[in-house]
């Protein structure tokens, strides 16, 4: 069944790449350099850069956070298209397992959607993307700003009426994602409401959460920054609007990094370092954005 999931991941990634290539309107073969799009020339230069260091080959086993799966799938697909001799595998098993895998050496690269804790030693992290989670309310809701404390109260059921946070006299309806979702895990861990959320509705896609919030004037929920639409309103958190810029400069609080975890004592293989170099290059910024995350500032 793991294999089936991987296949789905690869299919999703290839669909993404197909869309991307179609958008670029040209092949990425390095011989023709007439392509006007920056994305194309960017990925070309990185491919040439890697090629100069000798042909990269080998297998890189990665695993960890389920939240980063889409981003990693997109990056892997693009990398493997340029380096056909490299085989990248990804096993989504949770950030903890990714860090453990890198520490114990069972994974070439561990993937985590949180930074390392002080207790996690012997490994180092490389941030390659950021994830901003917007807090959304119905467009009719008068509340425009919430503090982290207020969001915590709304989520864990200690605040049950919107008038407690400056809104109308109406009950609070918390709409969220299903157990296992990376966005849910991200929201709950950043806000500090793990395992204590009082959900009124759970949906298995961000789109469904947004639809539910837009349909109910009492509702509030969370959604990945990249999925935001006009049908709902994103509140400012502690006065800071959720946008790519505020996530990048760190002022928007409900965000988390996507990081590569590598073992300090074992040097990563040539293929693994080539992939990490590729994934942290500026050329893939559009790819990361397309996969639903925020590229970090370079």
């Amino acid at each position, binding site marked *: *069944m793991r294999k089936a999931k991987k296949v789905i991941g690869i299919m999703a990634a290839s669909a993404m790449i197909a869309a991307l290539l179609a958008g670029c309107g040209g092949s990425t073969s390095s011989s023709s350099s007439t392509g006007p799009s920056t994305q194309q020339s960017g990925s070309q230069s990185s491919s040439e850069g890697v090629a100069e260091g000798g042909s990269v080959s080998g297998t890189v086993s990665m695993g960890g956070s*389920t939240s980063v799966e889409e981003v990693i799938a997109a990056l892997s697909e693009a990398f493997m298209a340029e380096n056909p001799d490299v085989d990248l595998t990804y096993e*989504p*098993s*949770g950030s903890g397992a990714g860090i453990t895998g890198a520490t114990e050496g069972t994974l070439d690269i561990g993937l985590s959607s949180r930074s390392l804790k002080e207790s996690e030693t012997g490994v180092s992290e490389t941030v390659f993307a950021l994830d901003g989670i917007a807090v959304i309310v119905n467009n009719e809701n008068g509340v425009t700003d919430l503090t982290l404390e207020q969001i915590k109260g709304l989520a864990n059921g200690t605040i049950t009426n919107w008038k407690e946070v400056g809104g109308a006299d*109406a*009950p*609070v*309806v918390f709409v969220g994602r*299903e*157990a*296992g*979702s*990376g966005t849910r*895990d991200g929201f709950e861990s950043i806000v500090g409401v*793990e*395992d204590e959320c009082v*959900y*009124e*509705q*759970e*949906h*298995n896609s961000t789109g469904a959460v947004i*639809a*539910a919030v837009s*349909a*109910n004037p*009492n*509702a509030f929920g969370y959604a990945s920054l990249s999925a935001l639409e006009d049908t709902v309103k994103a509140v400012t958190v502690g006065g800071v609007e959720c946008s790519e810029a505020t996530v990048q400069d760190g002022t928007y609080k409900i965000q988390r990094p996507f990081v590569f975890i590598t073992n300090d004592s074992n040097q990563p293989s040539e293929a693994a370092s080539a992939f990490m170099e590729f994934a942290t290059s500026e050329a893939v910024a559009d790819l990361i954005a397309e996969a639903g995350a925020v590229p970090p500032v370079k």
Partner: protein
Amino acid sequence: MKKLQKTWEEIMKVVFFLCGMVAIVMVVLIAGYVTIAGLPAIIEIGPIEFLFGTVWNSTAKEPEFGILPFILTSIWGTVGALIIGVPVGILTALFLSKIASPRVAGILRPAVELMAAVPSVIYGLAGMMVLVPFLMNLFGLKSGTCLLAAMLVLSMMVLPTIISVSETALNAVPEEYEQASLALGATKIETIFKVSLPAAKSGIAAGVVLGIGRAVGETMAVMMVAGNVANMPGLFKSVTFLTTAVAKEMSYASGLQREALFSIALVLLVFIMIINGVLNFIVKRKDG
């Protein structure tokens, strides 16, 4: 020439046999796979805790895997759908079979057939856009997604099954029975309820059981209106059915959570097998 014909006959026999085997092979494969995939987690969690645990919290630090809320919700949801669907369905079938003029029946019957053909996601969409806000306003709920909404959507979805199977059964009632009843002075309505309906009762029961199967197995439409929180069932509470419990968490599940979802699928399969067993029993008894 004759030999060629004989070979041809033999080949076609094998082809027919192989086609027939596809169904059996698929059922055995699916049942086998779900059993193999679902049993380990039931054993690991413990059958009692799994089936009768009241808390489902699959990704908590100390996860709990109790599926009693899902089982009860599926049962209540189906019962609710039948409470509305069976009377309406049977009366509609009676109307179509015994009362309606050919012209009216000519409009009603295609409408029922169309109802059966409407994809479940469309029922779900209609439920989400119309029914949920309506219930919210009617009962002053803070959120309209609840067991009642799922019951109402399911009742619409079981209707066509109940109507068409019951109508077939009612049409098969020998005309002499009804003529005899009328000749003895019974009115048309008395004849329908006291002669036609009892004579067709096993066929109608089969329709109801098929409807139960449809309601228990429905996923998409229910997921869109029920709220999907693992609460114990309550008419106005956000609830999760057995089907939606699997569908909701499958995409990002890992480890024991994923295995437990297969276990839920196994429980669902057992439910459906029991329902089909009952159906076979009813149909056989009718023949015997």
